[in-house]
């Protein structure tokens, strides 16, 4: 089996995923195109060397539809020999794309590839791709489908995380993200996005509010209380979790991941690629995995994924210096830290999606990059990135600096 290395990664700033967001006028194909252009240009990459590009994109319909990856590669002027494919592992798509690209290289079936992802949530809204899970009555009944927000509240209730716990975590995410930006921790990786006339339209994440405190969050109303109580989702959740007497609705817009636009790309290759390009590998991918877990509570997957990735790498949790877990909801991270005995000062140290947002298809590649940058800054050796995934899944990747 070949070794696979991360040579570089870039990400766009994350713009608020609404019609007044800075990136709303930028098409998703442009987000993907400019990301591919920048990772090529700054590495003076001869794109003929690439044997695949894999991008996560969750709502792959409309202008994100078809196979956005191949079209972005053509649009970015990549050599026509480079194919592209779009994958959907819901929220972990970006990390899954990196893992699949790595797998090709490890299997000796490619020398170099790009993994990454794109999602313009302001232009192609969540749910626009339909799907049988929630809509087809037969499937919704069979799987006890509930909305993800109810799952998050169920998770918080089952493991005893209060509104106060979740808000405190969220406030800290904003503080850390703001601190990281102020100190330039993201400078190396975040690329400016340009508009039609070539001007920088965005160079910073748009949704960070450093002034956030538990107090300022306390005014926000729970997002899923109505849906849970009136539409019947709580009852369905309790059909599966009958020991839960009552679901407490603790999550709201302020302690859940933000809806944003963004894209990211990670350049992967075997050792020879570095020699050809004259660049140094920054990290080795030690192991990766995706798992399935109970779908109604839906969001407990990361610890199971992390455990399996650790096992594959012959490591234990104590061997990991730094952790990134997508901040889908506060309770997801709180539960993971308890389940894996990870201290908060080694988890999401530069904030996460609660502060900066979660562009579904891209986030996995973004947090892997954030993890690597911070490992380098701290001069530590090992890191694990993971995400919870819709329908009860989890994806995790362990990297090690060279």
């Amino acid at each position, binding site marked *: 089996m070949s070794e696979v290395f991360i040579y570089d990664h870039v990400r766009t700033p994350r713009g608020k995923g609404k019609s007044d967001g800075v990136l709303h006028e930028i098409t998703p194909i442009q987000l993907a195109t400019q990301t591919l252009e920048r990772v090529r240009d700054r590495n003076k990459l001869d794109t003929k060397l690439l044997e695949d590009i894999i991008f996560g994109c969750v709502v792959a319909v409309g202008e994100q539809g078809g196979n956005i990856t191949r079209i972005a590669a053509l649009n970015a002027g990549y050599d026509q020999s480079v194919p592209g494919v779009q994958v959907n592992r819901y929220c972990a798509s970006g990390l899954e794309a990196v893992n699949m690209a790595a797998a090709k290289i490890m299997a000796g079936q490619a020398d170099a590839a790009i993994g990454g992802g794109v999602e313009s949530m302001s232009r192609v809204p969540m*749910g*626009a*791709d*339909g799907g049988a899970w*929630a*809509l*087809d*009555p*037969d499937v*919704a*009944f069979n799987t*006890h*489908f*509930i*909305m993800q927000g109810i799952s998050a509240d169920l998770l918080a209730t089952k493991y005893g995380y209060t509104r106060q716990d979740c808000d405190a975590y969220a406030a800290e995410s904003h503080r850390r993200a703001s601190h990281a930006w102020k100190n330039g921790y993201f400078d190396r990786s975040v690329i400016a996005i340009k508009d039609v006339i070539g001007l920088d339209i965005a160079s910073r994440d748009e949704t960070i509010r450093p002034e956030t405190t538990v107090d300022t969050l306390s005014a926000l109303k729970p997002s899923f209380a109505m849906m849970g109580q009136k*539409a*019947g*989702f*709580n*009852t*369905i959740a*309790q*059909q599966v979790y*009958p*020991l*839960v*007497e*009552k679901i407490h609705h603790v999550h709201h817009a302020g302690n859940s991941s933000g809806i944003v636009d963004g894209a990211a790309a990670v350049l992967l290759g075997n050792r020879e690629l570095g020699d050809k390009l004259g660049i140094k590998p920054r990290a080795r991918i030690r192991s990766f995995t995706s798992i399935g877990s109970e779908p109604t509570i839906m969001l407990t997957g990361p610890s199971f994924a992390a455990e399996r990735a650790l096992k594959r790498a012959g490591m234990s949790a104590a061997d990991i210096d730094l952790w990134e877990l997508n901040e889908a909801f506060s309770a997801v991270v709180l539960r993971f830290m308890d389940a894996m005995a990870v201290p908060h000062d080694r988890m999401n140290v530069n904030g996460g999606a609660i502060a900066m947002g979660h562009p579904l298809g891209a986030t996995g590649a973004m947090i892997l990059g954030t993890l690597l940058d911070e490992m380098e800054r701290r001069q530590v050796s090992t890191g694990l990135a993971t995400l919870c995934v819709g329908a009860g899944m989890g994806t995790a990747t362990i990297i090690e600096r060279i």
Partner: protein
Amino acid sequence: MTSYFKYSVDSDGISSIVIDQPNSAANVMDQQFIDGFKEAVNKAIGDDAVKGVVISSAKTSFIAGADLKVLEASLYEKKDPEDYFKKCFDFSSFLRKIELSGKTFVAAIDGAALGGGFEIALACHARIVSDKKGIMVGLPEVGVGLLPGGGGTQRYLRMLGVEKSLPLLLQGSQLNAKKALDAGLITQIVTSDDLLKVAKQWILDNPAAKQPWDKEKYQIPGGSSPMQPNIAQFFVGTNAAVQASTQHNLPAPRAILSCIYEGMQLPMDTALRVECKYFVKLNLDPVSGNMIRTIFLNKSEADKLSRRPQNVEKKKHEKIGVIGAGLMGAGVAYVAAQSGIEVFLIDRDLAAAEKGKSYAENKMKRDLEKGRIKEEKIAEILGRIHPTTDYANLSQVSLVVEAVFEDRDVKAEVYKKSAEHMRKDAVMASNTSALPISGLAQTYFNPAQFIGLHFFSPVERMPLVEIIKGQQTSPETLAYAMDFVGQLRKTPILVNDSRGFFTSRFFGAMINEGVTMVSEGVSPALIEQAAKSAGMAIGPLAVSDEVGLDLAHHAGKQAQKDLGPDYKPGSSLAVITTLVEKNERFGRKNGKGFYEYAADGTKAIWPGLHSIWKLKDEAAQPSLSEVKERLLFSQLVDAAKCFAEKVIDHPADGDVGACLGVGFPIYLGGPYSMMDTLGLDHVIQRCDQLAKNFGEDRFGVPDSLRVMAKNKKTFYGPTSVLLTS
């Protein structure tokens, strides 16, 4: 074979098909109906001189729906999915043939058109309905666990769109003509006299009519794609709401949802085929059979007073007495007055009697606000309730309902005072829910004229009356009591005297099991959730709190006093005693029971329970299905005992009583239907295991059940134990 159909063609080329089933009050859809219908329609379609067809009925209803006897027989025949589909789809396809015939079909509706009858009307190009009062149309199949399998779901969908059709189908709504017209289900309302004329004219005005969905560029109103955002949201919400409300127990609403979701994405012909397959699937599911048997067949039988002694002349009660103007007495007075009966409402002082009358007034005021009743009607009903303290009024009545405090001495006093005035042939009925009738009868001057009439609260809403025959109750007394229940338009079940009769002890078995589990350290949340998951409206702990733990405690003491050395305390009594005597937890009334009740109306399990009875670890907690099984099987065993002890003579009484009176899940059809569905061998095997694990007292099955199982007997059907004993 006489035809059900009168066929003629007039000079305008309009054919009339009049449905007139011989020797029957209504047109019933049996095989002969279907064959004759096809023959008549084919004749019209094959006749070049015919421009169009008016289908009408010679009866007071259009088509009454399925034939009960055929339906009953079909419950016990083994259905082959392929054959059954062929048979069902043959009819659905024939209706499709009507709408594609190239001739205009009009249904002229002059009476109720429900279910299959309305499906025929929907396949016509127009539905003209007369303005005769009380005509209802609709597709109520969901109520008996089915769906309209003759194109009903697809035609509703294509006429109304997803968001309007689904609620009507999921609720089985029956609409009057005005509402049906507003909804878009019928074409026009005309006077009864003009009905046929307008129907014929419609044909002349619309030659070779096509259904909207057979025209080019047709779109389902509101959109044809379930992925369209508003429709997607509607499906997500409805899928959740139905999962929550049915607790995954009712297959019909789920199948209806699938018919709409899948049907909207298909051309009509394929959609009809898919609908028919879901219809067959529901027919193969025991749930529909159980629902049809209990709430259609057996309830109809009970409503016809089938247990009434035949040779006693029917009596119409004009005036009755109600003694005790509390909640139950006031409720009985209210429903009697609603049914046109004069009521003397007697209590110890006039204020109390007046208060009982105001119960009716308050209920009707609420109906007035909602526009369900008119002022004059209220005055008329209230005018029939006469609050009084004077027992002399009882000389005018044919029946007295006694609803005073559950105390033998108090009741005996009332009987004595009543007897001084009551006519020799009048019935004395006690509404006791706990005290054995035969014992009470001994305190009445003529036990033969004494009977139990157990009403349920709130009387005006609960459809059931449990009639308890005492050892000495005469056939006349029983017959007159049944006549009274019939006048109230309530459903009677007949049971023989026993402590707790049938419904109370049967319901009590489930509560006892739930409360017993608390003492074992089973999570109270799990117990309550299991009851809901089984299909009960409320869990055993919540219902205990509602009834009052102090009352349960008192009833235990009373039973101990009554039975002396024969008294065997229920397995849950220790829990109740501890809560009442040591912790002053009386239930909802003092805000302290299994739950604690907050001022804002919310409640939560009282954590103190776990200091008294240590909660098992999460890993040691039983599964949801184990708890469900204990709750339901405790009731099955009690029902089997009631049958063995002859408290219940007919399983139908037990099933109807269980479902209509004490909230036993309707999808199971009642305890006797459930045992037949599971198979007695399986029931006995599970009970033996449960008896070993949790106690012979609650799960030991009577020997007679083992004998039934050994002889391959069932409670219902061709192998029914009733047919041979």
